[in-house]
């Protein structure tokens, strides 16, 4: 987690100069990097928590920091998880005020707790100031934010995302789906990205 935070701090200038609107805050790295990595994730999925805490920092270290790729976080709340949609709404609302990564970290860190209690807001509120809390609560009900989450879901469905997490690696017209990335198959993912970078 520490290395993830350091990497994020190093990338802040890139984030500031990247996409406009909410997308900017849901993107990690420089969008002019050659390879784009769309990460379809569900805040209530244990595999996504494991990915966020173990593989994501590695991916950031290997590809985002050197400017070879950038990550676009996409919400893909599965219907089997009763609170993941609500979590996605809060995270996307937080993105509108530039707090996506902080809220995402908090949601994954406290996943076991809010998945059991259903108190999603408690995890989110912990990393926001009272003023930010007010904004995020209002934004989480904003139809534009809800539509944005739905847009991600629709995009994932159109790409036949079979599970979470799923990574969509693309460069130009080349686009490949890599479902279930984990430390065990990371050499394959690395080889795939390196192939696109050639």
């Amino acid at each position, binding site marked *: 987690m520490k290395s993830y935070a350091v990497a994020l701090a190093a990338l802040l200038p890139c984030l500031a100069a990247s996409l406009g609107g909410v997308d900017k805050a849901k993107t990690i790295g420089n969008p002019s990097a050659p390879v784009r990595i769309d990460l379809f994730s569900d805040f209530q999925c244990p595999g996504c928590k494991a990915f966020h805490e173990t593989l994501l920092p590695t991916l950031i270290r290997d590809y985002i920091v050197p400017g070879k790729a950038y990550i676009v976080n996409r919400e893909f709340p599965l219907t089997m998880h009763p609170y993941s949609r609500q979590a996605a709404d809060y995270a996307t609302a937080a993105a509108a005020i530039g707090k996506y990564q902080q809220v995402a970290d908090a949601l994954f860190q406290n996943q076991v707790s809010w998945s059991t209690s259903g108190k999603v807001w408690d995890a989110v509120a912990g990393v926001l100031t009272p003023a930010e809390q007010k904004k995020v609560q209002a934004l989480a009900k904003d139809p534009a934010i809800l539509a944005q989450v739905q847009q991600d879901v629709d995009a994932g469905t159109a790409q036949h995302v079979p599970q979470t997490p799923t990574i969509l690696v693309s460069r130009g017209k080349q686009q490949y789906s890599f479902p279930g990335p984990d430390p*065990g198959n990371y050499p394959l993912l690395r080889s795939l990205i390196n192939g696109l970078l050639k």
Partner: protein
Amino acid sequence: MASSSKPLGWLALVLRIALGGIFIYAAWAKLRDPWELYALAINSYEVLPLWAVEVVARTLPWLELLVGIGLVAGVGLRIWSSITSLLLLVFFSLMVRAYAKGMQISCGCFGGTGDIISPWTLLRDGSMLAGSLVLTWLAFARRRQPAAPGRPVSDPNPASDRIPV
């Protein structure tokens, strides 16, 4: 013998064209994408170390292509049908094992991202295995046929007794 061998000959023809076509398509579906995607599907079965997964992912589609062409061409059918049966036996066994263990993984039959293993995919691959076993039996059957009455065992032209596969 000729009357019973004719329908069997047609059956063998249908089986080898169908299986050959499926194998060629499966090979093409894997070869059009980077090998890493097929490797990911193989790796999800959790039976091979990663280095072996890479070897299989890089070579198996080419073998499938060769087998498919061999089946469609109908030359050396005993060899190609035997390899097909062996391959399908291995694929089917691995799919049954994965399904029994409750693994929600892509079968990898037609490339990296494909059907999740289910009763449907088991039925599909099971039917292919059954068809392949029948084809293998038909390919070898001509050897087991007795010589026609009045014809020496070492008939220099036994084509009329052969199943026209």
